[in-house]
C-alpha cells in the first residue's frame, strides 16, 4: 500500500514512524498531488533526486493548508525509514543545503537525543540562506543555522510537534 509504513521499519518513540506527523497533516500529504505523482515508490536513492530539486522548506500554507514538497519528502523518509548512515550522509552533504536541512529535520524527529545534538550542532556553522514558506503562502528569508536553532530549542516546527530532547 503506498501509504503504509514499510513493514520492516522499527517503531520510533514508541509509535509507527508516520504517526509522528499528526493525522490531519498526514492525510493532507497523502491527498496531495506531489505525493501521489512524485513520491510513489521512492527509495533512498530516488529520494536523493527529489531532495536535490527542493527549493524551499515550510509546513502547510494557504487557506487549504496545502503541504509543501518538503513535508511530503519528510513523510516519505518516515515511511521508508532509511538507516542512520544514510541520514548522516544527507546531513554531511555540503553542496545542497535543502538536502542537509531535510536530513537534519528527519534526524530531529527520529533520532536519539545524543545523535541529535551530535549531528545537528555542527550545522550551526552553516550560514547559508534558505527560503521558507510561511502559513499564508508567502516566502521569507531564513538561514540554515536559524532553522537548526529552532529545531533544537523549540517544540514546534513546520507544523510538526518535535519529540522531547533534554536541554543542552
Amino acid at each position, binding site marked *: *500500500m*503506498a501509504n503504509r509504513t*514499510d*513493514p*520492516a521499519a522499527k517503531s520510533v518513540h514508541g509509535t509507527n514512524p508516520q504517526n509522528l506527523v499528526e493525522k490531519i497533516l498526514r492525510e493532507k500529504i497523502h*491527498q496531495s*498531488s506531489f505525493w*501521489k*505523482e512524485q513520491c*510513489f*515508490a*521512492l*527509495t*533512498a*536513492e*530516488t529520494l*536523493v*533526486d527529489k531532495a*536535490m530539486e527542493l527549493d524551499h522548506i515550510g509546513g502547510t500554507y494557504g487557506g487549504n493548508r496545502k503541504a509543501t514538497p518538503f513535508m511530503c519528502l519528510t513523510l516519505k523518509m518516515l515511511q*521508508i525509514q*532509511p*538507516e542512520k*548512515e*544514510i541520514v548522516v*550522509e544527507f546531513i554531511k*552533504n555540503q*553542496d545542497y543545503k535543502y538536502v542537509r536541512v531535510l536530513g537534519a529535520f528527519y534526524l530531529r524527529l527520529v533520532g536519539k537525543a545524543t545523535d541529535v545534538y551530535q549531528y545537528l550542532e555542527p550545522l550551526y556553522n552553516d550560514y547559508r540562506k534558505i527560503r521558507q514558506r510561511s502559513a499564508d503562502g508567502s516566502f521569507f528569508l531564513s538561514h540554515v543555522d536559524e532553522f537548526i536553532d529552532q529545531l533544537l530549542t523549540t517544540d514546534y516546527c513546520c507544523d510538526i510537534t518535535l519529540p522531547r530532547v533534554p536541554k543542552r
Partner: protein
Amino acid sequence: MILLSIDHAFCLQASGVDNTARRKWDRQEFLERARKREVDQQARRNSSRDDSPPGEKKPLKHRDFEVDLTARLGKTQVITQVAPLDQQAGYFCSVCNCIVKDSANYLDHINGKKHQKALGMSMRVERSTLEQVQTRFETVKRKKAEGGLTDEGTYEMSIQFEMRMLKQQREEEERKRQRKERKKEKKREKALEDAGGEIDDPEVAQAMGFGGFGMKK
C-alpha cells in the same frame, strides 16, 4: 381450494392437449446455455486468479515518466454509450481496461495494488544501501556540472550552434528562391493575359477596361 393454477387445471384434463396460447421455451436449449455460462464463469474466475506467484514479483519501481493528466484537458469530444472505454470521458487505464473519472482517483488507481499486480510488481519497495545513496549523490552532481560549462559541454553547444546557423541560411535561400519563382510566375501570367486578351485598338481596350497600369480611374 377452488382456485387452481392453470397448469394444475390443465393436468386435470384428460386429453393433455395443448390448446393454450402461452409461450413455451425449449428447456433443452436453455439448459445448454446455462451450462455453457457456468463453464465460462469458472474459466474467467480461474484466469483472473492466475497472477504470478508472489516470489516472482519485482519490487516496486518508481515511475520514470511523468503521468500526463492534462492531455485531454479542454478538448471537446463526442461520446456515446457504446463507445469503447478509451474514448469515454475520464482517464483511461489501459492496463486494467477501466476508466477513472477523476485525476486524483486516477493517481490512486495507478499507485494501487491491482494495477501494480497487473504490471507484475509487488507493493514492497527495495531498501537502498549507503553506497547507493553516495554514488547517487556523485552522479547527480556530476550530471549537473556537465550540463554547464565543461569542455565537452561547450564543444557540443558550439556544434549545435553551427548546425542551427546552417539551417537558417538554407531556409533563407529557400525563401529567396521561392519569391523569385513567384515573381516570374506572375510576370508570365501577366504576359499571357495581355497577349491573349489584347485588342488592337488601345482606345477600345481602355474603354473596355483592359488598360495597363494606372489606367483605372
